[in-house]
């Protein structure tokens, strides 16, 4: 009887090697996957921070452009959004007739309007302007009472998007319209305390000063490059639509 020599050691060693190699591969892949994921998150955060906020709706080449200088805490602006702008977005903006541009003009008399504008700008940076803009106006009375804007933004966007918005809101916890202003906040309202989003709000305010705009809401309508005089105050949707129709018929 031929007794076959069995060599368990080299086989075991080979198996061990194979297992080690597989583990090493798996671990390597896992580590590189984690690194990749981390790098991707970092890249998203970086691109969010560098992206300009898009606070407009519709086709940029639409014949009519309507810019609205608005304050999120102003009741008249809320009324204008609910009763006029919502209809305009659903009808004229969707039909490609109107290009809607939101401009921030937070008034100093409203304690949470500047913070709301920051949330809106942060959302606009990740392409969530429309939902957050709507949520802020829809719940204006609620957050105006306690200043808790965050919960309505969180409810309007998904958890992942909210995380991105929160990241962009870093350094924006000091409320410039609150009773006590930080020393770094100068008289012109220009913030220099680290909230990068304020740059966009101040840019809108500069545009408002050039027109000039002094109250909210103020609408500026441009038709085929010709700007019509600024229209302060609330206008109902049927009357605004009538104006749009008269422009489009020309």
């Amino acid at each position: 009887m031929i007794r076959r020599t069995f060599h368990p050691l080299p086989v075991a060693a080979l198996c061990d090697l194979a297992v080690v190699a597989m583990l090493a591969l798996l671990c390597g892949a896992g580590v590189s996957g984690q690194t990749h994921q981390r790098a991707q998150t970092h890249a998203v955060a970086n691109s969010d921070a560098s992206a300009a906020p898009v606070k407009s709706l519709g086709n940029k080449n639409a014949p009519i452009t309507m810019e609205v200088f608005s304050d999120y805490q102003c009741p008249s602006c809320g009324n204008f959004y609910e009763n006029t702008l919502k209809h305009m977005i659903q009808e004229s903006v969707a039909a490609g007739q109107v290009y809607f541009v939101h401009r921030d003009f937070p008034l100093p008399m409203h304690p949470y309007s500047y913070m709301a504008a920051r949330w809106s700008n942060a959302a606009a940076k990740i392409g969530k302007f429309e939902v957050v803009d709507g949520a802020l106006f829809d719940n204006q009375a609620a957050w105006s009472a306690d200043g808790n804007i965050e919960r309505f933004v969180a409810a309007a966007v998904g958890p992942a998007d909210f995380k991105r918005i929160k990241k962009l809101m870093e350094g924006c916890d000091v409320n410039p319209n609150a009773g006590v202003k930080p020393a770094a906040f100068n008289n012109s309202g220009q913030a220099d305390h680290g909230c990068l989003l304020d740059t966009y709000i101040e840019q809108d305010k500069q545009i408002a000063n050039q027109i000039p705009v002094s109250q909210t809401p103020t609408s500026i309508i441009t038709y085929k490059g010709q700007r019509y005089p600024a229209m302060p105050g609330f206008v109902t949707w049927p009357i605004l639509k009538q104006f749009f129709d008269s422009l489009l018929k020309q």
Partner: protein
Amino acid sequence: MTSEGRANFRRIFLLIGRLALGAMFLFAAYAKLKPQAAMPWSVGSVRTSLSMFAMQVDSYQLLPPGAVSLAAHSLPFIELALGLWLLTGLWLRSSTLITSLLLACFFSLMVRTYSLGLEINCGCFGPGEQLGKKSLLRDGSLLAFSLAVTICAFLARKKRGESATSVSVASEPQRAN
């Protein structure tokens, strides 16, 4: 001042008053009808100006959209007609009375809006003029001036009526003779 001097003053004031009010109403109508944003005069551009004026009327938040549209599309033409009527000097008591009533209506609307704290355009002489103390003072002064012209128109008529009666009374004995 003699009664003849007073009558002359009243006549001159009435003439200046109706011409000034007439010109003002013509200008107000022109400012509302003129094409905006460098558009040429055409039916379409006038329609757009009227629609723009409708937005100003609407911002007063007093009338429903249908009434706003009707008021905005008729008011500039009413102002135009009233301006021409005042310039002709025909039926002066009626024209000045209607002018005063219209101005009183405008002024009370402005006071109401201002007291409500609505920051809107006045819409008095076309777009772009904010409703504020300045526009209230101007329209208040115009109303006072218009009332003075209306009173003058009624007094002048009364005076003419009295002198006509005295002439007819004086001519009675002659006829009897």
